[in-house]
């Protein structure tokens, strides 16, 4: 094996672009490992861990780009470097405009002075500075970046509340504001349902389901997973809910979150009781009765939250897209070739929801993100027994792009699960919408076919598609690709997990 490298000083690309290119080039024949990234502490550690560090990297800064490739021979390694350069140059050309782009927020604001939203996905250590600058200039903020401290979050949200500006995040992946999907969000019709959520894929699942059921969205405001913690006190949830209460375009308000801290719950309920509009609440994992006792409509899962919101929005009763009889019929011929179920999720909240639905009926479920009653996996890279895995969790995404963008690790894992004689049923999600991979179904099917060919095994496969027919990926085409490969396809995670439950019961 030989290692080849290229340093490009004072050349900056965003981490997603670099990780995707690194992952694509690693697939080329003869290439063993790639590190394509800015010279951050993390990337330096990765190079050392992979035994690819060279003394020439000493003294480089996060403004310098490193391309480092280990391959079977020098020619292949050099060809790999050339391929990375080619892809980076294509990327630059794609985003290139006649004018040189600004390199700072201030420069961008000078070009678009009436900008009213700043979407921030820079590394966490720089994100709060940019967010504060945006707020001080009267602009709303969507803070996609993670690794922002809770103290910084509190400071930013205090400024946001004082100026009545949104601070969506940190670690907020999904929002639909004034009809525009931001970051990872689906194309949905406008309507009278307003949502406030501390869950990215939860928000995608509910907004997409609302759309497919025929209703629409006024606003979908992400607040970040810590907003309802004791320290943050629900600052953004309260601000956003109040604004939706006063918004004439919003008739029904939906709240999605993990159960709030006890101290926050009191002030939240007090605030919500002052609102005359209908409110649907899904506090993931909380007892719906405690919500109903307060006079609100409680949902029992994400699909149910969408159905209840549509009922209240239109005054008509809605049903799940797949009836229980239909799912039962689909599971009737579900002969499992192995005893265990495996879930390979890209959406964290969907993974959480699957565990909560199955946990009462399945003896033991392991996960890398276990909910109450489930077990922590001993080794997240090897499944044993029933396993439901969030592949978007930090374990799998350090230095790699999220599995909604980059299917590389999920494809590898899918192949591995298919080959496992213990695996009888594999569930996975396909999340459509802006930000997501443009053809995840084909990527999953390629891995399925390879796994089947290598192992000769045919475990049952089921997928749920989180998305709408307006999304850039073509919903029907994604569905057809999966179905042609023998995958049972469901419109919601709840329907898919119900199918899994019935298969497990039928194979006892």
């Amino acid at each position, binding site marked *: 094996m030989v290692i080849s490298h290229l340093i490009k000083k004072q050349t*900056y690309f965003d*981490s*997603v*672009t670099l990780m995707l290119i690194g992952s694509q080039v690693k697939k080329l024949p003869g290439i063993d490992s790639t590190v394509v990234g800015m010279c951050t502490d993390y990337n330096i550690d990765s190079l050392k861990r992979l035994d690819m560090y060279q003394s020439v990297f000493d003294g480089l*800064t*996060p*403004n310098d780009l490193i391309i480092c490739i280990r391959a079977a021979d020098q020619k292949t390694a050099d060809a790999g470097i050339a391929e990375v350069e080619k892809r980076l140059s294509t*990327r630059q050309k794609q*985003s290139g405009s006649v004018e040189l*782009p*600004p*390199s*700072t*927020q*201030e*420069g*961008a*604001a000078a070009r*678009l002075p009436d*900008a*009213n*939203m*700043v*979407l*921030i*996905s*820079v*590394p966490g250590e*720089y994100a709060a*500075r*940019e967010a*504060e*600058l*945006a707020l*001080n*200039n*009267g*602009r*709303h903020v969507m803070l*996609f970046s993670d690794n922002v401290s809770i103290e910084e979050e509190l400071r930013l949200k205090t400024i946001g509340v004082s100026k*009545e*500006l*949104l601070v969506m995040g940190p670690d907020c992946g999904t929002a639909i*504001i*004034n009809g*525009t999907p*931001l*970051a990872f969000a689906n194309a949905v019709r406008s309507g009278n349902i307003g949502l406030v959520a501390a869950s990215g894929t939860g928000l995608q699942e509910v907004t997409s389901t609302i759309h497919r059921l025929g209703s629409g969205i*006024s*606003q979908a405001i992400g607040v970040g997973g810590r907003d309802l913690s004791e320290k943050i006190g629900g600052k953004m949830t309260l*601000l*956003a809910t*109040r*604004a939706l209460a*006063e*918004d004439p*375009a919003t008739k029904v308000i939906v709240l999605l979150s993990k159960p709030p801290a006890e101290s926050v719950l009191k002030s939240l309920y007090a605030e919500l009781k002052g609102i005359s509009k209908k409110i649907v609440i899904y506090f993931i994992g909380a007892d719906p009765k405690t919500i109903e006792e307060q006079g609100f409509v409680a949902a029992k899962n994400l699909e149910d939250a969408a159905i209840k919101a549509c009922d209240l929005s239109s005054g008509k009763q809605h049903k799940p897209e797949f009836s229980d009889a239909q799912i039962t019929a689909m599971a009737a011929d579900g002969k499992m070739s192995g005893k265990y179920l495996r879930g390979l999720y890209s959406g964290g909240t969907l993974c959480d929801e699957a565990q909560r639905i199955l946990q009462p009926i399945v003896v033991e479920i392991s996960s890398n993100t276990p909910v109450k009653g489930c077990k922590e996996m001993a080794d997240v890279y090897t499944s044993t027994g029933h396993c439901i895995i969030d592949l978007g969790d930090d374990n799998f995404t350090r230095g790699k792009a999220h599995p909604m963008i980059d299917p590389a690790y999920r494809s590898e894992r899918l192949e591995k699960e298919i080959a496992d004689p213990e695996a009888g049923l594999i569930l996975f999600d396909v999340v459509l919408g*802006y*930000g997501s991979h443009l053809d995840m179904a084909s990527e999953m099917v390629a891995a399925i076919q390879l796994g089947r060919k290598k192992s000769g095994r045919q475990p049952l496969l089921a997928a749920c598609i989180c998305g709408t027919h307006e999304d*850039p990926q073509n919903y029907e085409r994604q569905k057809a690709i999966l179905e042609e490969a023998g995958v049972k396809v469901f419109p919601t995670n709840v329907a898919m997990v119900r199918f899994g439950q019935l298969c497990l019961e039928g194979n006892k």
Partner: protein
Amino acid sequence: MLKDFFGKKIKVINLGISSFADDLIKQGVETIHTEWRPPAGGNKKIQALLTKVSNWQSKVTSAKGAR
């Protein structure tokens, strides 16, 4: 007021992942992507000073606007 922002056309400054800007532009949203890089070449001390200056500038601008 936040409620007054609802219904308005959004105009976006994008800092970081360039594909987010590409998606917005495809949807016809007025967007400016910034070829962002760590300020002051990654020097933390100079970054802190720059932040102070930027925040001070914003305060001066908003005070002028309020007159």
